């Protein structure tokens, strides 16, 4: 992100963990500005040039989306394009901009732009290789979703064996702080017929030139039968040896998909998920285990119900968490709907009950557009109530949206909340967006 940041974190003894910070340098703003202008020009060009195109026989597609929002003053420009001429190429850019938003450390006269995604993926028509370069989200095997400036190559053998290598610089912190911060790794996976994948992986990560993570992992996702699916992954930390994370899920559904049940378990080692350059990793690992079940039931054509319950370990104690949620569509097409949810959490010091109500109310519809009203309300009632924190933390929002069939959408909302941090917070939000994809058939 942005702000004054990196020097603040340069502590005595050069204790700098900057790479994982969420702040950025001013210089970055200047460098990003050119990228923003270029992207906007390209986007505008595409918008204008494509107005005259028809859905003719073109193996190319271009999509553009523009977002602008007030309070906080942020915007997005999204451009996607692909071509299926040799080689197959997919390109996408997602650029965020903010101005005078104190929530993000920007004073009134400050603005910044941040490219979240600028990536190009090249694929040969036979599907033997995929190569992605640029800024993107990497998540494969043992690697938890990581925002990366770098590359990812996948090679596919006819035996359904996949080889992956990846590497780059994690996108966190400012340019200065990211010096010598990098990661690299690989994965080998084997397809199990048409039933799933099984893989093993390895990656390491350096933080300010020092080893901060080194993990091996295994993963699989298998469709055991048409009604039964299983998937799991685990990762083992090598720097501070021990289990870093295990996730597993088994789900079964009826043929008509009206009923789906799932058993799940997660076990995490917080100190091994931290970068090993943090002092807190030398403390004992409290561990965190969560296991439970989830049930989805389409009780009626317009009524969906979810029920979830889990036992959870935290801070050396056991507790439980669960919710019941219902969604009622008010028409057959699902244009209108009402949602209700009751949630309870009772784990360690986290003890609260929450109620959430939301609705989508279609107000007007014709062949050119729709108008809808979206009220949303939530209240959290903590078990421990003090005069300082208050007895309940309500939050509410009323949004109105007009959507045009050409891709324009205008939405505005009023939002109010009260919680333990702010006695009252009222704000207005507005958003203008434009979304369109041009493509054709070959």
């Amino acid at each position: 992100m942005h702000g004054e940041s990196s020097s603040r974190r340069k502590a005595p003894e050069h204790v700098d963990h900057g790479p994982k910070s969420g702040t950025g340098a001013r210089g970055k703003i200047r460098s990003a500005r050119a990228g923003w202008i270029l992207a906007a020009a390209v986007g505008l060009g595409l918008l204008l040039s494509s107005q005259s195109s028809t859905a003719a026989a073109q193996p190319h597609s271009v999509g553009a989306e523009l977002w602008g929002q007030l309070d906080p003053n942020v915007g997005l420009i999204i451009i996607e394009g692909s071509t299926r001429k040799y080689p197959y190429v997919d390109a996408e850019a997602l650029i965020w901009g903010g101005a005078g938003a104190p929530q993000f450390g920007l004073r009134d006269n400050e603005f910044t732009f941040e490219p979240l995604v600028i990536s190009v993926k090249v694929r040969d028509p036979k599907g033997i290789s995929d190569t992605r370069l640029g800024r993107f989200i990497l998540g494969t095997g043992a690697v938890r979703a990581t925002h990366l400036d770098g590359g990812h190559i996948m090679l596919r053998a006819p035996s359904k064996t996949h080889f992956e290598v990846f590497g780059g610089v994690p996108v966190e912190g400012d340019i200065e702080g990211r010096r010598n911060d990098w990661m690299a790794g690989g994965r080998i996976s084997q397809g199990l017929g048409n039933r799933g994948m099984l893989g093993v992986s390895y990656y390491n990560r350096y933080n300010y030139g020092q080893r901060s993570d080194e993990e091996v992992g295994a993963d699989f996702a298998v469709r055991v039968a048409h009604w039964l699916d299983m998937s799991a992954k685990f990762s083992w930390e090598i720097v501070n040896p021990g289990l870093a994370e295990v996730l597993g899920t088994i789900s079964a559904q009826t043929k008509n998909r009206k009923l789906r049940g799932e058993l799940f378990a997660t076990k995490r080692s917080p100190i091994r998920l931290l970068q090993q350059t943090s002092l807190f990793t030398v403390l004992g690992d409290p561990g965190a285990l969560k296991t439970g079940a989830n049930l989805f039931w389409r009780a009626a054509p317009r009524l969906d119900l979810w029920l979830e319950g889990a036992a959870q370990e935290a801070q050396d104690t056991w507790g439980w968490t669960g919710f019941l949620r219902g969604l009622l569509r008010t028409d057959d097409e699902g244009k209108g709907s009402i949602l209700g949810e009751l949630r309870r959490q009772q784990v360690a010091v986290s003890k609260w009950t929450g109620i959430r109500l939301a609705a989508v109310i279609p107000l007007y519809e014709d062949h050119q557009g729709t108008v809808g009203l979206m009220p949303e309300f939530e209240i959290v009632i903590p078990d421990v109530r003090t005069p300082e924190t208050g007895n309940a933390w309500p939050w509410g929002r009323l949004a109105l949206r007009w959507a045009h069939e050409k891709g324009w959408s205008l939405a505005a909302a009023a939002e109010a909340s009260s919680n333990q941090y702010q006695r009252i917070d009222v704000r207005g939000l507005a958003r203008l967006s434009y979304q369109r994809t041009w493509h054709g058939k070959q």
Partner: protein
Amino acid sequence: MRNVLAITALIILAGFAGACAKMLGLEQEKEDRSFEHRAHVIEGINCLRCHAGIKETGETGPLHFPSTADCVECHQDPHDPSTCSDCHGRARNRHAAEMARKHLRFSHAEHVEAGVTECVRCHVNVTVDSDRARVQHPTCFGCHAHKGQWDTRDCGGCHVDLPGEMARPESHVIHDGNFLREHGVQANAQGDLCTTCHTQRQCAACHGVTVPTIPSRLKFDQPMRDTMHRANFISVHDQQAAADPGACVVCHSELFCVDCHTRLGISGQNPVRGNPHPPEWSGPPGSSNLHGPAARVDPLSCASCHSGAGEMLCVNCHVVGGPGGNPHPPGFSSRLDKVNDLPCRLCHVGGL
């Protein structure tokens, strides 16, 4: 009198049940059903009688579904004045066909030119199950050698815009239940399958950790959207972090917490803030020193304010020969270099 009350109650109950049935979709306003293809086939009615012109259709153009006028050519005395397709034929199947016409690269005319003149050769299900009239993959692959493309998730040869086509995935990638929790392990195991429909922007909406583009903020007009950080998440974020240790640092670093807490003036690095800790939080050896057990059961809570430069606070005491003693648990081991690497060098000066 009692009977009258009972009957009245029954009538009200029945009315309520009827209203509920309608609301729940059990009693639909327009109750569509599968089209009676089988009955027409048995009657010997040629497909082209209703789907006239379909053989000449390329990749674009009309769908060639029969209109009410076509139906009444034979059914001269319709039982209902409404449009026939309101009830005969599923609306969802028509919608799927419209989406396919728009987003699928397919030409009936080319198949006819290639000698495939029998409709049921591909539409095998129309004689038994009109709900599945659309051709399935195995039927296509019976003639077309697409196994390679199938294996390598190369769908673009036929599916011009798979997300736009709104083709729902099968089995283990059904996005039902609590897919928000499930999707991570699925994506890690078979991410290239996800990319057949999803692009990076959808990952970055939540996992692009540098700036907030989370759907609950930018798509505030879609309250039904499930997201990890719902609106109002801020009011319970500290409790969530305490209840599920490690969940936050899967995406965020502890310094992400410090950044925000510092900006709001509630971190350990803010010089003007008050001490949020209770008395006896820390003291000389022998005192209660509540911070020790607290740090061991929830080290990430400490890290959310004291990471980075704040860690120096710890090593003032927890240093070799210092009053805090050894903070390592029994069996602790690490492959870090004690002399050069953080955090070892903070305490192990000179490798001691």
